[in-house]
C-alpha cells in the first residue's frame, strides 16, 4: 500500500511517551501529564449545517482518524502486548468481569490473540471498529439522518448509526455491527447499540462479550485533532455491572480512506475458509 507510514521519529516519540506514561502511572496524579500531544491543534472544530460539530476536515482540507497511543480498553499486565496497554483508562483488575470472561481473556493472550476472527477478515463492531488500524472516517449525512463510520481495515466495511429518532427493532437478529441509534447531547454524539453477534470480538483487548451486549458510545471532538471515544459496556453475560473506558483518536492530516482488502493475500482455504472445525479448537 502506498501511504504515509509514521516516520521513525514519530514512532520513537510515540514509544518514548508510552514508556513515560508507564513510569508516571506509578506516581498518582502525574499520569495526566503524560499527554503525547503537548501542542493542541487550535483550528476550530468544523460544524455542519445543522449546527453540530462534525468529525470531518475543515473545508478544503483532508484527514482521517487513527489510533492514538495503545487504543486499549484496559491496562492488562497479562496482555501479550504488555506495557503498551498500561496507559489505558481502567485496569482489568478494576472492571466487573465475570471469572469465565477473565479466564477467556487470559487464554486469548496466552495464544497471542491468534484466535481473533478479525485476523480472518471478519468485521467487528463496537470499540473494535474504532480501534482498528489504518484509520476511519465518521461521516454525518443529515439528509439521510445517518452517521456512517467507514473503516479502512475491519473488512473495509461500514457502520450505520440511525439519527432519525427510531428505536431498536424488536426481535433483532444479531449481526456483526448490531443496530445503532444515535443522538446529540450538546456536541457529543451518543450512540446506543444492541444486537451484536458473538462471531467477532468487541475489542483488541481480547475481552469477550455475549449477545446480551449493550453499548453506549460517546464521540466528542475536544480539539480539531482529537476524538474522545468513551464507551460503556453493559453485558450481563460476561460482566457483573456496566463499566466504562475509552481512548482517543488522533487526526491524520491529508490522509484519505484507502482500499484495504483483507482477503487479498489471505488465500488459505484451510485456515481462513475452512469448514469451521478448526475454529472450535480455539475460542
Amino acid at each position, binding site marked *: 500500500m502506498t501511504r504515509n507510514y509514521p516516520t521513525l521519529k514519530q514512532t520513537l516519540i510515540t514509544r518514548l511517551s508510552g514508556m513515560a506514561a508507564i513510569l508516571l502511572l506509578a506516581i498518582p496524579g502525574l499520569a495526566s501529564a503524560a499527554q503525547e500531544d503537548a501542542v493542541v491543534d487550535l483550528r476550530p472544530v468544523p460544524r455542519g449545517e445543522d449546527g453540530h460539530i462534525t468529525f470531518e476536515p475543515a473545508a478544503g482540507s483532508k484527514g482521517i482518524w487513527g489510533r492514538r497511543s495503545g487504543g486499549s480498553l484496559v491496562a492488562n499486565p497479562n496482555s501479550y502486548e504488555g506495557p503498551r496497554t498500561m496507559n489505558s483508562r481502567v485496569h482489568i483488575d478494576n472492571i466487573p468481569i465475570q471469572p469465565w470472561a477473565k479466564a477467556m481473556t487470559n487464554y486469548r493472550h496466552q495464544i497471542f490473540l491468534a484466535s481473533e476472527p478479525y485476523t480472518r477478515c471478519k468485521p467487528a463492531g463496537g470499540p473494535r471498529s474504532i480501534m482498528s488500524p489504518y484509520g476511519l472516517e465518521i461521516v454525518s449525512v443529515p439528509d439521510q439522518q445517518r452517521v456512517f463510520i467507514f473503516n479502512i481495515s475491519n473488512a*473495509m466495511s461500514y457502520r450505520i448509526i440511525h439519527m432519525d429518532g427510531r428505536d431498536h427493532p424488536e426481535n433483532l437478529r444479531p449481526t*456483526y455491527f448490531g443496530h445503532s441509534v444515535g443522538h446529540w447531547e450538546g456536541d457529543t454524539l451518543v450512540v446506543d447499540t444492541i444486537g451484536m453477534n458473538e462471531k467477532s470480538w468487541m475489542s483488541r483487548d481480547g475481552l469477550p462479550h455475549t449477545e446480551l451486549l449493550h453499548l453506549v458510545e460517546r464521540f466528542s471532538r475536544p480539539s480539531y485533532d482529537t476524538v474522545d471515544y468513551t464507551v460503556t459496556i453493559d453485558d450481563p453475560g460476561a460482566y457483573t455491572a456496566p463499566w466504562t473506558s475509552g481512548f482517543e483518536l488522533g487526526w491524520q492530516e491529508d490522509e484519505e480512506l484507502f482500499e484495504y482488502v483483507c482477503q487479498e493475500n489471505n488465500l488459505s482455504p484451510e485456515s481462513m475458509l475452512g469448514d469451521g472445525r478448526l475454529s472450535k479448537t480455539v475460542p
Partner: protein
Amino acid sequence: MKKSNTWLLICAISLCTFHVQAHHPVAAKFDESNPVTLTGRVTEISWANPHVHIFIQVDEALGEAGNWAIELPSTVELERSGWTPEDLPIGDIITASGPAAINGSEQLWGNRISHNPDGLVLFSTNEDALGVLLASRPAGPSPQWPDGQPRLGPPPGGNGYWINTGSGSLVEEGQGIPMDSLGMLDNINDAARVAPFQDWALDLYRLRQASSLKDDPGFIFCIPPGGPRQFQQAYGIQLVEQRNRERIFVLIGGGNHNWRQIFTDDRDQVSQTGGNDDNPLFYGRSRAHWDGDTLIINSTGFNESFWFSNGGLPHTRLLQLEERLTRTDLNTLHYAVTVNDPGAYTRSWTSSWDMQWVPDEELPQYYCQDNRL
C-alpha cells in the same frame, strides 16, 4: 413452529420454486443427477452467509448414517421469504431432499425440507417475494437536490437501495443472449457473441463457463466485486452522495459489505485511495462528473485478482471503465458500462441494465466471509 406471513401466503398460493442455478456456483458443488432424500435429527443450524447450513444426524435405520450438512440459500433470501432459524428447533426430525455433493462428502443442497411428522415444508424460498415487493412500489419522478440534480440515493429522510433483478451479466449491447442470474449461458455456443473477446480471453471464458464458475474467487475467497460486478450483486448497493466533500460512496450490500469511493473533485487518477501503477486495486481509482442527469464515472488502476463480472468474463490490468448512472425515475437506475481493455478484448464495447429501487428497506448486512472459519 412458525406461523404464516405475507410471503409464505404468497408462496402457498403461487409457486414456490427452487433453483439450484439461482444461487452461487451450486451446480459446481452438487450433482443434480444424483438426488438423495434423508431423514434425520437436527443437530445444528448455521444461520450464516454465504449459505445457511442445517446439520442432521442420520441413523443407520433411516438411510445413509452420518452427520449430513444440508446447504440452503443465504440468510437474506431465507429471511426475505419469512424464515428464521427459530422455525426449526434443534432436535426435531426433518426430511431433506436434493442433489448430493459431487465429491461424495455428506452434503446435499436442500431443495426441499419437511418437518416430521407433520409434513410442514420449511425454508422454501419464494423467488417471487422481491417481485411482489417491487410491484407494490409507488411510482414517481426521480428525487432531486435543491439545485435540480437527480439524487442517486433515497429521497430526503427516506430509505432504500438499488438491486439488480435482471439476468445480470455483461453482454454486449444488442446481443440478447440467454443466461441465468449468475451469467451462466443457456448455450455455450453463444460464448463468442457475449463480447469481442481476444482468443485467449474467449478460451478462458469458455473454460470458466464449462466448469460452472467453480473457480470464482468472489465465492471461494470472498474477493471483492470490483467493476460492474458490484452492480450485479443480489444484495444491492446504496449510493451516498456527499456533495460537500465532492465524493460518492458506493455501499455494497453483498460481497464483503465493502464501500467504494468515487471522487467528483477533478483529481488526477494518481495515487488516490492507496493505488498507483505498482499497486492496482480491486475497485480501481474512480473519478466522476455529471453530464446533464447522468453521472459519468471513469475508472482505471484495476488488478487482475478478481472477476469484474459474473459469468467469468476475463479482464487485465489495462482495463478502463466508463460507467454511466442515470436515474430515470424514482424506481429506476440505468447502469451502462463501456469496457475498454486492449489486453482481453479486440475493441471497446458497452453493456447496460436497469437497477430497481427497493424502498424502505435497509441494505442487507451480508458478509461473504460470515460462515467461513
